[in-house]
């Protein structure tokens, strides 16, 4: 048959393709940072309003030099905050998925719970941060993990319930025509159907978890956490150091997000949003 000549192997991306793909993005970054440096110098902007990128870079390089001997508070703070974010993300999303699986089993329960979950999801949960600090102790990482878990929990749970219940009726009838047991329908149909929903929640909550950890630390915590580091350096007028910490927080958020994207690609390469061009 004629179709056998069709080639479905993924398109080959060469080194040059990649350069061409990322070049505009890199160019914009270089332009923005360059303009920032020049404007601050030309307009003689005070360093406490906006430090020069070169000053922030100098702070970062200094901390990296210290980090070699394990004396950098900034990098210790990066580790502590990343740990709170990852810990809270893991606990929150696992709880969200498990509770969704349990409640979706009994439609009545999940339908009764969903309005509350959706309401809770639109509450600024970060406002609970001082309460969590009070419950678990200001310097105990558990207080930050708790607040991140709560932030992550609701979107993950809501999306998992959606994925488990919004199944194409024809797909369900196919399963019924085979007289498949509910257990088999769950594993062969409902759970794979849920993956895209879960991952869209995980993408959002990966960034939210870093925000949650840093803001939780604004309300107090050990010296070596990004939230505390930023507030202390800012109040001491060391704005270049505060900015260096902000950049590290951004890097944690971005790498975390990329990690989730990577997992998504590995776990569901079949999904329409991730397919290689045929």
């Amino acid at each position: 048959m004629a179709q056998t000549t069709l080639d479905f192997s993924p398109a080959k991306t060469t080194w040059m393709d990649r350069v061409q793909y990322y070049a505009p993005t890199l160019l914009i970054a270089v332009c923005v940072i360059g303009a920032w440096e020049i404007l601050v110098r030309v307009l003689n902007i005070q360093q406490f309003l906006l430090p020069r990128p070169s000053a922030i870079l100098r702070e970062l390089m200094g901390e990296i030099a210290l980090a070699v001997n394990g004396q950098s508070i900034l990098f210790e703070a990066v580790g502590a905050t990343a740990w709170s974010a990852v810990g809270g993300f893991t606990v929150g999303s696992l709880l969200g998925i498990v509770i969704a699986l349990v409640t979706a089993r009994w439609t009545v329960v999940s339908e009764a719970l969903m309005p509350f979950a959706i309401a809770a999801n639109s509450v600024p949960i970060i406002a609970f941060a001082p309460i969590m600090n009070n419950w678990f102790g200001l310097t105990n990482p558990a207080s930050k993990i708790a607040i991140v878990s709560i932030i992550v929990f609701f979107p993950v749970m809501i999306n998992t319930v959606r994925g488990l219940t919004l199944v194409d009726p024809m797909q369900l009838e196919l399963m019924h025509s085979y007289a498949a047991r509910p257990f088999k329908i769950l594993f062969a149909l409902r759970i794979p159907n849920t993956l895209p929903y879960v991952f869209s929640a995980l993408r959002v909550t990966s960034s939210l978890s870093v925000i949650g950890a840093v803001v939780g630390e604004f309300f107090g915590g050990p010296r070596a956490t990004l939230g505390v580091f930023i507030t202390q350096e800012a109040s001491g007028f060391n704005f270049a150091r505060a900015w260096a910490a902000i950049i590290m927080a951004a890097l944690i958020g971005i790498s975390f997000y990329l990690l989730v994207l990577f997992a998504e690609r590995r776990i569901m390469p079949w999904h329409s949003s991730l397919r290689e061009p045929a």
Partner: protein
Amino acid sequence: MAAQTAVISAKNLYKVFNATASEAVTALQNVTLDIHAGEFISLIGPSGCGKSTLLRLIADLTTASQGDLTVNGKTPHQARLDRDYGMVFQAATLYDWRSVLHNVQLPLEIMGYSRKDRDSRAREMLDLVELGKFANHYPWQLSGGMQQRVSIARALAFEPSILLMDEPFGALDEFTRERMNMELLRIWERTKITLVFVTHSISEAVFLSSRIVVMSPRPGRITQIIENDLPYPRVFETRETPQFFEKITTVRELLREAHEAL
């Protein structure tokens, strides 16, 4: 014919939706039909004539309001539990996360076939629909016609004695549809399966089936059952014979009469 026992037997079958409400809809009224082993039956009629409802009653995806229906001498429910039929829907309903081979293996997995049997049976079925080379592809890499062939392979994989098809080629273009019709006839002749085929295409019904059940809407009912004596095997040229056009005209007239009687 009459002495032969029916594979599917409907007697005075009724299906009413919203029976208690004032806007009750009679989807099927007093349907009586015997389908025998190895027949290729087409159910044809305009939308709302109950052809899909009748198919879904046979498949036990919905239940009759009144009347008797047996499938392989059992209730439709028991026949479904015994996996007596394979079903092909309007859409291919393949699972995106499974390769073509694993999609065909799905029913075998559910029915507890061994790993070895699953693999050999699925490959055999893919060869039957001439997609053996595409076993490791994913559904989205196939055209609509190829996807529907995979779903036919999947429906036949566990060797059911009945194949139920609900407008399976409705979404395909005319050329693909004609090729799929040839393919389906070849499969039917090879497997000797009993086939119930829902369609709204007159030429498709005439080209494929051994008997055509013409239905009309409001309330859904059987207008007439036509014996289709066009000789098998039917080939591309069959569509160009005067007998073919005669049959088409007969069916078209019946459908129009039913429409005008409304």
